[in-house]
């Protein structure tokens, strides 16, 4: 079975619908999380200290989740109808994560410790029910009215005449699953480019050209963002920036915005971190409206490499729902190579087992409630590469040998042939540079990660399949 074609049949199961209800002198926000057969954890119970702001930011999460910035006509039937956000509760924060149906936008709302005054009862990651009536009710919230919040499977009071289970079956496309996981590694490759005040960001949104789907170059000049069709020193590339309009309402509450750009590939991914006194809303945008995040950059190379069992074991053992995974600590405590640790963390991110916090530049522990260990196997190029290697389609012409004419440690390039169908593709790997004669490589170069042929050659080299 071709792994790339496998979508996941998934059932959201809740004991009720999340709701915002009015009580005497206050409102109550009940966020219902996925129900488990043998436990119904209650993660949090308290009061939201800025109801209007938090309500608008939660609406932003809901809006991104249901957004379809691009739908090819042929995909209409396959597009995910509605997914629910994922919530991670830890000691200090609640994080809501969502991924758009079109796979091009990722959103995360971090409610910081000072956003909610209450009792944190449990830690973990699960789905949280978001529905249209709740979103509508959130839009009506005003400051001045206290808002109680409960988050958990038992957040809704069970009706006296019996439970009313809410079940919704969805098909989670493999592209969506991969993208949701891969966007974490994508963020790990981003760096801060510039910062704006809230007013500057609101002006930028107001002046954003309508319907711009292609690439643009952004720089901070004279108290505002300059948008250009050409690159210039200090500018970052950004694709499909019209999608930022989804932040219109949220922007009213923002003090500062930090903008991140990608340092790899074609460099068009961006992330926009909106800060308020008690929360951070991050929106990551894919390189183009019609592209996702999946398989970009060096992620596939990392996934293609054999796992380092020692490093992986150490990293996994350290996971305890912490908000920041300390790489230095792992390096010191376990005597590991830093690069190795970071590669294994990227692998865990691709499996949906950790998320990436841009603000702190660290991963955090959370486990996507889907069948996440299977996600990396869904990468079509990886699956294709494995098939080529397993089918003995790789033939080496030259192998990496030390070169007498180069610096010590430098090697002669590897040349190999990969048979696929009725043609052979020539792959040359020279240090960090690789090229192939396939159509994919001709079209994208290395800007979207390696093609399956380059991956196959790397896999074969690692496996020691060197026979010509």
């Amino acid at each position, binding site marked *: 079975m071709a792994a790339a074609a496998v979508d996941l049949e998934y059932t959201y199961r809740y004991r009720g619908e999340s709701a915002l209800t009015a009580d005497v002198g206050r409102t109550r926000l009940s966020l219902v999380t996925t129900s488990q057969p043998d436990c119904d954890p209650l993660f949090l119970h308290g009061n939201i200290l800025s109801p209007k702001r938090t309500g608008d930011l939660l609406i932003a999460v809901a809006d991104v989740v249901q957004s379809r910035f691009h739908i090819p006509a042929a995909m*209409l*039937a396959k597009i995910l109808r509605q997914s629910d956000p994922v919530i991670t509760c830890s000691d200090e924060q609640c994080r809501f994560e969502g991924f758009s149906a079109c796979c091009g936008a990722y959103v995360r709302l971090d409610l910081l410790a000072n956003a909610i005054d209450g009792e944190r009862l449990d830690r973990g990651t699960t789905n949280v029910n978001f529905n*249209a009536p709740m979103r509508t009710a959130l839009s009506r919230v005003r400051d001045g009215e206290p808002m109680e919040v409960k988050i958990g499977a038992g957040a809704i009071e069970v009706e006296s005449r019996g439970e009313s289970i809410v079940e919704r079956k969805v098909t989670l496309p493999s592209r969506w699953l991969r993208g949701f996981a891969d966007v974490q590694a994508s963020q790990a490759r981003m760096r801060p480019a510039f910062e704006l005040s809230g007013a500057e960001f609101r002006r930028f949104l107001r002046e954003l*050209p309508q319907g*711009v789907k292609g690439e643009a170059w952004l720089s901070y*000049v004279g108290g505002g963002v300059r948008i250009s069709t050409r690159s210039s020193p200090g500018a970052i590339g950004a694709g499909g920036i019209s999608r930022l309009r989804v932040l219109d*309402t949220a922007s009213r509450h923002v003090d500062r915005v930090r903008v991140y750009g990608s340092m790899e590939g074609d460099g068009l991914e961006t992330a926009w971190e909106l800060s308020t006194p008690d929360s951070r809303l991050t929106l990551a945008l894919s390189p183009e409206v019609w592209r996702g995040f999946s398989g970009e950059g060096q992620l596939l190379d990392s996934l293609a490499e054999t796992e380092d069992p020692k490093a992986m074991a150490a990293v996994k053992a350290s996971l305890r729902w912490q908000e920041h995974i300390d790489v230095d600590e792992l390096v010191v405590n376990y005597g590991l190579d830093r690069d190795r640790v970071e590669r294994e963390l990227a692998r865990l991110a691709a499996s949906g087992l950790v998320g990436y916090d841009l603000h702190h530049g660290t991963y955090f522990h959370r486990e996507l409630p889907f069948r996440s260990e299977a996600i990396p196997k869904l990468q079509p190029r990886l699956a294709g590469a494995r098939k080529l290697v397993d089918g003995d389609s790789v033939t080496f012409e030259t192998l990496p040998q030390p070169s007498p004419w180069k610096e010590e440690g430098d090697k002669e390039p590897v040349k190999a042939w990969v048979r696929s169908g009725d043609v052979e593709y*020539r792959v040359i790997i020279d240090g960090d540079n690789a090229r192939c004669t396939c159509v994919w490589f001709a*079209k994208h*170069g290395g800007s979207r990660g390696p093609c399956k042929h380059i991956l196959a050659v790397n896999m074969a080299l690692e496996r020691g399949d060197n026979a010509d």
Partner: protein
Amino acid sequence: MPTELENAVNAGDAALVVRLLAPMTEADRRAEAPALIALLRKIKKDQRGTWGPQTYVRESTASLAVQGTASLTEIKSVVRFYVEEGVFDVLVARRPPWLLEWAEWSLRESEQYRSVQVWPFVRRMVKEGLIPRPNVDMYYLAMADRAKQNSVKEFLLSDPDLLDYDVWQLFRIEGNQQFSMSGIEKYGRSKWTASLIELMNDGVLDRNRLLDASLDALSRDFPEFRSGWFSRFHEALSPTIDERLVRQTRYLELIGSKIPPTVSFALNAVAALDKAGAITGRDCVDAVSPAFFAAEKKIVTQTLKLLAGWVKRDQELKPRAVDIAAPALEHGARDVREAVLAFMTANGYSPASETTANGLVDEPIDQEQPLELTPIAPIETVEDLVDAFAQCIETEGPPDDLERVLDGVSRLCAERPSDFDRLTGPLRKRARKVVENTWPTSLQGYSVKDAFAGLAIAWLEGELPPVSNRPDPRGVARFIGARVREIAVRVARREAAILLATPTHEGGWIAPIAFVERVRESNAASTKANFLQSLLSKLSGQSQVSVDLLQALLRLQPDGREEALTSAAGLAGEIGDAVRHALGSDTATVGPSTALWFAASRARDPWADDPLVSARHRPSGPGTSVAGKIEFRWRHTESLIQSKTYEHHWAEFDLEPALQFDISKAEGEARIDVGYPTLLMLSTGSMEPSMMRWTSVVWPANRENWFAAGCRMLGNNLDWWGAEWGNICYLEPLLEHTTHLDGMAGVLLGLGLAAKETKEGWIAREALVAAVRDGRLDADLLGLIIGRLFSWDHIKIPRVAERVLQAARESTRHAQVIHEAVGKALSMSPPAESGALGAALDLFYELSILTNSRPAPPLLDFLRTIKGSNRSATMAKKLLSL
């Protein structure tokens, strides 16, 4: 042996299919399925390319048969959504367990195919208890669309169960691109609004429920077009003050909507309540705060008016009102900011400090930059050529990369290393695939992708496409096609040669010394090559001069000519004379080849006339032996269609010298020989962006003729009547610091600023910014460009104003130059139409504030003549008071 079912399908007899299926067991049906699926696939394939009502009869009959025999998975994969009358009978007789799923799938397919024919069958299944209501929005949207086709009221009354539940779902559903209540209402014969109101008046539908349902829908923040019906419907119910009062909280909540028309709707409702004295400021003041973040002026000003009224009646609201209004101080419109500040100041606000800083940065002018161009490294090996070729086929550019590959294949075509077939296998396969359906036309110049795929086949297999029946493309793409063909013919025979026209530097430029060396090196082969060229030319009626040579001349860099001229001293024949003339010699003898001497003349000085060449070869248009002139103009036409007059402005130009043929018509243009690319540029029209970009480097030294074509393309599509995505390519060279902005380039810049399409306007604005920065645009020249726009009645001045203002915010210098330019434009040629004048004066006012300037005296006189109370007069007064 075909079965009875197959025969029925082939005969297109749906009724027989239904009868044959009726008594079958599920096992029998499944046994029939494979053959019927195969038959359906064959029918679909056979009828490709045919049209007409009978065309799909067999397919729909086959689809019916498949739906009566196959599994649902098979049905979904092969049935292309035709709804046959018999589908209800077929499925009801079958009673598959997946009937509900089939219904939901069919309804979703309805959306994609924009057809609601399946709805009656699904509805019947629901009514007869065969399936529950499908859990898809299209069930209700399809119902709404079916109803609109005749009488909505009668439709609903004929199926009264719909009134209890289904009708109310329409207030819950957003709709989609194909179906929404807004769209259904707009295009329906019968209107839902009127019908629902009639039913309400008849006591069939509950009024309160309709009022509440429409507000519920608006709460969901559907996109603007789709939510519009609900607000219009609510207002069509004419709610009384008492009814509004009961719903006061809902209206106030809707002021927080992210959909501007919904906010306006809510504000109107609140204003109505306020006018009736039914509400107080205290009830409302907090709820209106989101309106002060709105981008729409009307929303902010309306809310400000409400707030002012409340404060007037209840002074204790002042501090809160000031806080609430504060966000509007960031509004993009100056008059809104001024109004809000005035309100806040009147109610106790004291700004911390007066700031006159305009947020602009100081920027020095870029000194005139020498033509520093990046050299291009040629392709050295067959391996590198294979990679570069594949890349060009996929990415179709940039032009420098395309030229590298032409050069590489021309020089290396005879080399066949030992693993050549193995190495080029993927390229060969890909090239064949690309031109699978376009092989005969691949080398004509229609498409970069096809051209390089065709060239690859010529190189790898020695094969050239057959003669094509399709005419050559319009404009200078024809010249490019001729170049590629010239190379392909030689490459197919593995005759390696250097190309004269290969750029040595980015942007299509050739260093003169390199050009001379190439001419010298190729002279030995040129006799034979010229013989072949001459033979082909005679056969085809094309120019007798190699297009490679013509192209090379047009790409000569202005620098380094003296050295090259010295080196060219020994070049023989007419070519030698032409080369020396191009490089600046005054002693060359003008020969008989017109095309050659036109190219040499333009290479010598792109902007000046050439009397020596003109004496022998009469100039036949701009860009021949004279620089020529191009004057842009509009031709205004009116047409009467169904009693309505439509105006159109056609972009045209007058040429001096005039052309012999009407280049705007294909037959006129076809009479221009391919050897005159500078003339062909004038008729360059719609083409793919990659080919458009390639044509921009045919004559990098002077693009006036090319820009003229761009003016015609943009000018005829200012309001984006057609999706001409290639047009932005005309604007891109305006960003280069070597592009002069007088003449056609300046006209094109203006048209770009006036264009509706976002990216065209964006690039034009960037070009304006770049040109002010590098000194190409001063206030005089920019004033001419803007003044020209002001003088054209059909230009949307607010669109231009917005972009010009954004450009002014780039730096202090930009603001100053643009302010002065707009002032000059207003003095020279103010817009005649009042609305346009108002927008222009508004722009000038903003610029005056930005630069802390006052209008110059000539403009002051003009401003004093503007009377009245309209926007122009208001802005004139404001400017006079500065």
